[in-house]
């Protein structure tokens, strides 16, 4: 059996199990047409197998199976909700379905928010012709079949068009009630010229989540994104961000990942206008049989752009961290400033970090650096802290937070950064006492 045939079979198996190949929209709508095109795209690719180079460190089989595997619900009701101290517009999804009763009114000055399913009926909607376009661009040079499958199948998600500077961040909250449901979410965000949005996301969403977020940031637009992925132990998630960034624009994205059986988080970012900036960062903590994969592809296609990839992973009790990061500097993208760092802190001998940093440069006047390290807590620093009276566990936590600090520093809003820091501190504090788990 050829690899290509195996991929096609995997897709057929996934599509065959009762689920339709395509989302609910009729072929006649712009959404239906985009979904049909996406279905054709994924049919041309198939689903990945273990022998796929891009899936070398992460086994896609539980993403390929037709139905989500059961994942026990995680009870963390006693803890403060993420971003609870931040004044924000809340949009709540339960098991991947928008819940208007728990959500705020969608009206906010400087921004238009609609559900994907409702926008499809409007033939002249701004999203027509844009939905699926960024995902399709992201299929070269490396195929991302789960993203195309998402575009084809999604019938839930939000379309956000930002025309001004809304007074509050928009917060997408993904609750889950079902132990074994799939959720497919596809968001499309357009930040118009000079506009600015902060987008927050949190929650586990489903036993298995497939999420695509397409983000277009027009010239001089600014987009800030901070998310935490729910830490239900058995949940699986594959998420993609596809971003297209215009001249003088800013894109910043930070992701906190804690536990979760399998988390593959991909980002495909294109700097298309001169003097634009893209920073993407991740802090991840895994204590147990958890697998966190961050796969990032940043393309510099214009002059004087700056990109940073900052990924920090703290792993123990068998957790596995993966980082695949690439900076591609196209011909003519002179004065590019590219930076990439991926580091892991292995708290015991059972954990593993696999990194594949790549640079591909076709311009001659650029500054690009990348580094990747893996190590244990610094014994000398630990001794120094203890000699000042800080107990061992607290000293370890302090050093772990210090290790993650460079990633958290990528969050511009201090209140939001503090929220993330607090969550990490609480996580570390719980793990100082419990060996495995929470």
């Amino acid at each position, binding site marked *: 059996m050829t690899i290509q045939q195996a991929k096609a079979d995997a897709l057929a198996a996934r599509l065959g199990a009762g689920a339709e190949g395509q989302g609910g929209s009729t072929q006649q709508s712009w959404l239906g047409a985009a979904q049909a095109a996406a279905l054709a795209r994924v049919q041309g690719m198939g689903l990945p197998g273990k022998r796929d180079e891009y899936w070398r460190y992460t086994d896609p089989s539980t993403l390929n199976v037709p139905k989500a595997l059961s994942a026990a619900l995680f009870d963390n009701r006693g803890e403060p909700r993420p971003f609870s101290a931040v004044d924000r517009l809340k949009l709540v999804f339960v098991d991947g379905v928008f819940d208007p009763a728990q959500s705020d009114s969608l009206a906010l000055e400087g921004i238009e928010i609609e559900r994907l399913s409702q926008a499809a009926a409007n033939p002249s909607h701004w999203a027509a012709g844009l939905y699926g376009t960024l995902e399709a661009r992201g299929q070269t040079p490396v195929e991302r079949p789960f993203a195309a499958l998402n575009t084809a199948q999604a019938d839930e998600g939000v379309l956000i068009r930002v025309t001004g500077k809304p007074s509050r961040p928009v917060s997408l909250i993904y609750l889950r009630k079902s132990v074994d449901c799939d959720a497919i979410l596809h968001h499309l965000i357009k930040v118009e010229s000079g506009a600015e949005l902060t987008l927050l996301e949190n929650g586990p969403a489903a036993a298995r989540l497939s999420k695509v977020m397409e983000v277009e940031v027009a010239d001089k637009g600014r987009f800030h994104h901070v998310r935490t992925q729910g830490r239900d132990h058995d949940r699986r998630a594959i998420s993609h961000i596809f971003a297209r960034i215009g001249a003088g624009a800013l894109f910043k994205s930070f992701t906190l990942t804690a536990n979760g059986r399998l988390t593959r988080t991909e980002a495909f970012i294109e700097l298309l206008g001169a003097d634009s900036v893209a920073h993407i960062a991740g802090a991840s903590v895994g204590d147990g049989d958890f697998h966190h994969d961050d796969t990032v592809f940043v393309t510099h296609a214009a002059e004087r752009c700056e990109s940073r990839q900052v990924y920090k992973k703290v792993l123990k009790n068998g957790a596995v961290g993966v980082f695949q990061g690439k900076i591609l500097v196209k011909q003519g993208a002179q004065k590019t400033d590219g930076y990439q760092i991926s580091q892991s802190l292995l708290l015991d001998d059972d954990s593993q970090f696999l990194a594949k940093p790549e640079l591909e440069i076709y311009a001659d006047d650029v500054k690009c650096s990348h580094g990747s390290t893996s190590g244990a807590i610094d*014994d*000398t*620093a630990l*001794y*120094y*802290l*203890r*000699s*000042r*009276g*800080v*107990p*061992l566990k*607290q*000293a370890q936590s*302090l*050093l772990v*937070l*210090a*290790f*993650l*600090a*460079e990633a958290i520093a990528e969050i511009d809003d201090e209140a939001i950064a503090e929220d993330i820091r607090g969550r990490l501190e609480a996580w570390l504090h719980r793990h100082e006492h419990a060996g495995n788990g929470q």
Partner: protein
Amino acid sequence: MLEIKNLHVKLADEDKVILRGLDLSIGAGEVHAIMGPNGSGKSTLSYVLSGREGYEVTDGSAKLLGEELLEMEPEARAAAGLFLAFQYPVEIPGVGNMTFLRTALNAQRKARGEEEVSAGDFLKLVREKAKTLKIDAEMLKRPVNVGFSGGEKKRNEILQMAMLEPKMCILDETDSGLDVDAMKLVSDGVNALRDAGRSFLVITHYQRLLDHIKPDVVHIMAAGRIVKTGGPELALEVENNGYADLLAEVQA
């Protein structure tokens, strides 16, 4: 204050013996100095007392105010009142100096069953102590010792000492890497802490530091033991004649 008896220490990983029956007794409020040639075990003594890993105590005891130090975790020794000013203060990227100081202070207070210091009181205290050591706000904000000059690192050690108010302070070659002005500043900081209830053990190679921090007792250490004890004049003798004569005299 500090009673060390017949202390024998070897490296944990190899058969190298470093301390061979060291005895030392420091009374409350006293300042003792230890001098001695390279490799005599001076720094090892300070590490063993503060609880650094990598050493094995094969015999003897070290008591602080009657409590056996050698059985305690390093943090418990600190809470009991021991402080080591490091010869090479450690850089900790990502941990702010202020956070570090406050965490340490409150951890010690908690261990002793005392109330934690409020953010406001802490800030007031640290500013006041930092000012006398010419440590500016910028230095307090930076990560612990990262990018500090040699002098700044040593001043930062003394600031920690001033904040934590230990009972027994060990200064391990605090004068190394300091210019004359910095030495004066650091010494003034130490002298300001001299108190009837606080003792000091000053480890140094040079008489110069002892001009500033005047010791009550001077010990000469060689091959893992105290071989001679005297007054401040002993330090002058070392400065003038070196160790060779002294050691020959001891061995004779």
